[in-house]
């Protein structure tokens, strides 16, 4: 397991980096940005997969399976829905360019 301090440091660095990168996004694109971010927050899927997968292989309780299964479904809806809708929105902006 990685040292907790490293994890906290990664969190801080990414927060600061994200803050400055996102500042350059114009308000024109704030809605797609937000729904894109939203999709990214479904990254918790990674955690859900690990926990559920390991629980299954270790043959843990039913509860673990139920919790994990729900977590995976919720996170995947978040990811697919989020990226899908962002793509649709951005395409709407995009198709006007040739005119």
């Amino acid at each position, binding site marked *: 397991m990685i040292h907790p301090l490293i994890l906290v440091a990664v969190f801080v660095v*990414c927060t600061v980096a994200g803050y400055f990168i996102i500042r350059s996004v114009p308000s024109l694109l704030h809605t797609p940005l937000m729904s894109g971010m939203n999709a990214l927050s479904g990254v918790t899927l*990674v*955690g859900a997969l690990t*926990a*559920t*997968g390991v629980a*299954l292989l270790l043959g843990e309780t039913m509860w673990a399976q139920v919790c*994990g299964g729900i977590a995976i479904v919720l996170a995947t809806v978040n990811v697919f829905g*989020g990226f899908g809708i962002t793509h649709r929105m951005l395409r709407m902006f995009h198709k006007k360019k040739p005119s």
Partner: protein
Amino acid sequence: MTVIQIVVSIVLSLLVLTGISLMSRVRTAVAGNLLSAAAMLCGVVATLWFSGIVTAWTIYIGILVGALIGSLMASRAQMIQMPQLVALFNGLGGGASALVGVMTYMGWGMPAETAYPMFVRAAALIAVSIGMVTLVGSLVAAGKLHRLINQRPVVYPGHTLWTSLLIAATVILIVTGTLSIAHARLAWTLLAATAAFGYLFAIRVGGADMPITISLLNSLSGVAGAIAGMAVGDIFLVAVGGIVGASGLLLTQIMCRAMNRSLMAILLGTKPKAAKKQSPTPAATADKTPEGQATSFVPTDDIEKLLEQLNDMEVQQLLDAINALTREVAGLRSELAQYKLADNARVAESTDAPSEAPAAPTPASILSAAKEVIIVPGYGMALAQAQHIVKQLADKLEHRGANVRFAIHPVAGRMPGHMNVLLAEADIPYDKLYEMDAINDDFKRCDAVVVIGANDVLNPAARNAEGTPIYGMPVLAVDEAPEVIVCNYDLKPGYAGVQNPLYTRDKGVYLCLGDAKETLMNLINDIR
């Protein structure tokens, strides 16, 4: 966790950051989104591989079900429903983080011994708390935006007390949970407490403050993911969660500034009027403001003293009563203004009948002659689903050689940047859309302004009527334009409850009240 795994996580995190920076320009935004999505896919595959769970078949069923539901929702949704959809997805992400927290806390699916059991428990419990607040808060927000729940702020007796108690309980549960060994009952209690907190926090927020709430919840869902990542010990999860948290925070900040509201005031459910009541307390000089605007209520010192003796509940009742009265007065005033204007309208300004009197200017004749036109769309336009007719109007004017631009206030719509998406849906080119700061100086130079379903964002009272709730909020300088055509449903004050002095201006203001679709159609037909 091996070195390779760490390197892969870092590379993927950088890819996500690159994807986001690509989203700062329309031309590259699609690619940016796809890049982020691809990085995420790689992250998932890498996790499956490194954790040695490729053979755990149940997870694929979960992914399949989720992917199906998510894709269906994404392809069916309309653009005006975007805010509630984002809120909903957001909540689901938070809920997933909370569940991951529960699993990690209970030690389900974790390697038997970890080197830092206290850290893991603390992170897991914090993930549970933030995730659950995000889930319930987002569901309430989505419900309000979708009008399943009353949009007005709901305040229960002892609301603040309960909220504080729940926060205290959450902190105590997290601390005891961290210090002792895992206990299922504690996890469920924590879930219940934070769910209740999430409900109380979101139910208090009014419909028009939703852009800020959604941004904040978006931020929280990222933070929940990051902390769940700390519990599981996954660098990629921590990194991406941090980025999302930062973006939500930034958008929250931008929204707060654009609406001239403090975050605390919104979270505590103080309505604009009440917020003002608290702010002038240190400087009682605010009482000297010209009170010609009967719509606003400034307390005197005596009232302040009185308020100190009342409890929260009574103050709230009092405020509600005052607000109700204020609204009634405002309603009467606007009715009066409408009669006055109807009289004027009968003389010259009718848009319904093709006017045969060329002497008096009509909205149509002004637009026919205008060379520089600025259109100011608001949420009312979206509610009337009039964006396609707005596009027709713009096309017709451009066809006649006019330069048509759109002025977008940062809070137009129900989420950050919402109006841009709605206009893009109607095929209006994005280079015609101007942010407030970019176009505000051009209002005095243009020939005509067409306001469609917008009110508070162009209310000059924000600039000169000290003491009103919106005073100090940056607004579009529509009042500097020589000719203003207002296509609003009625003249009632907007969400902030402040009369718009523009409507009663003597010269150069034309009101086309009613459904935006109809009034715009009439306008288009009359332009010759």
